[in-house]
């Protein structure tokens, strides 16, 4: 609670200068003593999280010890590449561009995806675009329902509920993207004797919004403890270009633009942050609801959704499990 006792977004305000100093100190300690590498590779998406992670790495280790990787593919948003270039230029870090379309073609990603999509939209062509969206758990509480939204080249939109098999096939195919990118990050990290920095914020880390052995893989995750709105605060302090700070978070994973809050989170990040903070700190749903302009029962639904996602994604954080512990 703040000094007036009210629950509000003010509770997520931090001292950016102190926080950046604390993170940088800790990054240096971890790189020296645990990771034992003297530099990091970071996949740059042109989004706020990878931009802040890169800026923190530059502040902690020095720009000459940071390599940015830009890894577009044929479905990437044009602005992702533009903004990652703007970021790299503003930080003065070296970058390498690896277009991953060829690798994705080789592993059959585009074919597998289109075949899965055709199970629900038979006319789905190779030149169509699509994305997965979920049902609105706030206004229509129930089990999450997944839909494929597909768009023909001439513009008509189709929205179909996804049965289990095509849903799993689409997600499994799409996960190639994050895993191919991570494979390339580790290729460059290995040849430079660097580590890999991951870019999840607290919402993503807590709620399991990442691909195991894909974007979930890293040696160090410098902003995993920060709520998304706190990442924006650091972005401003670190001088991240305004165009990147003003860009709405997208997954940039599907060929149609997909907001994070239409696929995974039940609310836009500003509200999701407050719900997660409230839940983590034992704030009653009614108080959180009052700050958000919601009804208490709507916040209860979000609290429950947080628990459900924690329960169903916790295995993503687990190392391989052993039948018997092995002492070192």
């Amino acid at each position: 609670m703040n000094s007036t006792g009210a629950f509000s977004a003010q509770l997520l305000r931090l001292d950016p200068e102190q926080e950046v100093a604390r993170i940088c100190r800790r990054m240096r300690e971890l790189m020296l003593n645990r990771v034992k590498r003297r530099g990091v590779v970071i996949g740059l998406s042109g989004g706020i999280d990878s931009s802040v992670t890169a800026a923190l790495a530059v502040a902690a280790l020095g720009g000459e010890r940071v390599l940015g990787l830009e890894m577009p593919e044929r479905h990437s948003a044009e602005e992702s590449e533009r903004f990652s270039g703007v970021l790299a230029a503003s930080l003065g870090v070296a970058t390498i561009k690896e277009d991953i379309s060829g690798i994705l073609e080789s592993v059959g990603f585009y074919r597998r995806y289109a075949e899965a999509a055709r199970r629900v939209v038979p006319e789905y062509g190779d030149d169509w675009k699509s994305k997965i969206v979920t049902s609105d758990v706030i206004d229509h509480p129930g089990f999450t329902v997944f839909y494929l939204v597909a768009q023909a080249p001439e513009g008509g939109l189709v929205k179909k509920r996804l049965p289990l098999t095509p849903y799993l096939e689409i997600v499994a195919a799409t996960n190639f993207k994050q895993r191919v990118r991570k494979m390339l990050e580790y290729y460059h990290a290995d040849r430079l004797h660097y580590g890999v920095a991951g870019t999840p914020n607290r919402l993503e880390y807590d709620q399991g919004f990442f691909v195991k052995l894909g974007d979930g893989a890293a040696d160090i995750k410098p902003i995993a403890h920060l709520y998304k709105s706190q990442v924006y605060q650091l972005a401003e302090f670190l001088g991240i270009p305004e165009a990147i700070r003003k860009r709405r978070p997208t997954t940039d994973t599907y060929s149609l633009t997909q907001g994070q809050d239409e696929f995974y989170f039940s609310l836009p990040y500003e509200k999701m942050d407050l719900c997660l903070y409230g839940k983590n700190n034992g704030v009653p749903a009614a108080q959180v609801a009052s700050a958000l302009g919601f009804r208490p029962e709507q916040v209860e639904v979000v609290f429950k959704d947080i628990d459900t996602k924690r329960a169903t994604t916790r295995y993503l954080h687990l190392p391989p499990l052993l039948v018997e512990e092995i002492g070192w």
Partner: protein
Amino acid sequence: MSLQDDIRAFIVDSFLFGEDGGLRDDSSFLEEGVVDSTGIMQLVSFLQEQYLITIEDEELIPDNLDSIRKVARFVETKRQCVKPALGLA
């Protein structure tokens, strides 16, 4: 086997490696951690194929699908609606 037994057999076989572990007919799938949202999709596919029913988006709620008893009651209700339409009544 009754409808409820059929559904129990599917749940136990699909999600519990064939061992019911004391799962009661009114145990909440979600609270017991037996079935997650992906499991619900699997359950829905099974119900639609096995009982030739169509489950609408707004019917995908815990009241209909969160325990063996609720699922059985829901399927029974749906079948009552389908039978006349198929001329099976």
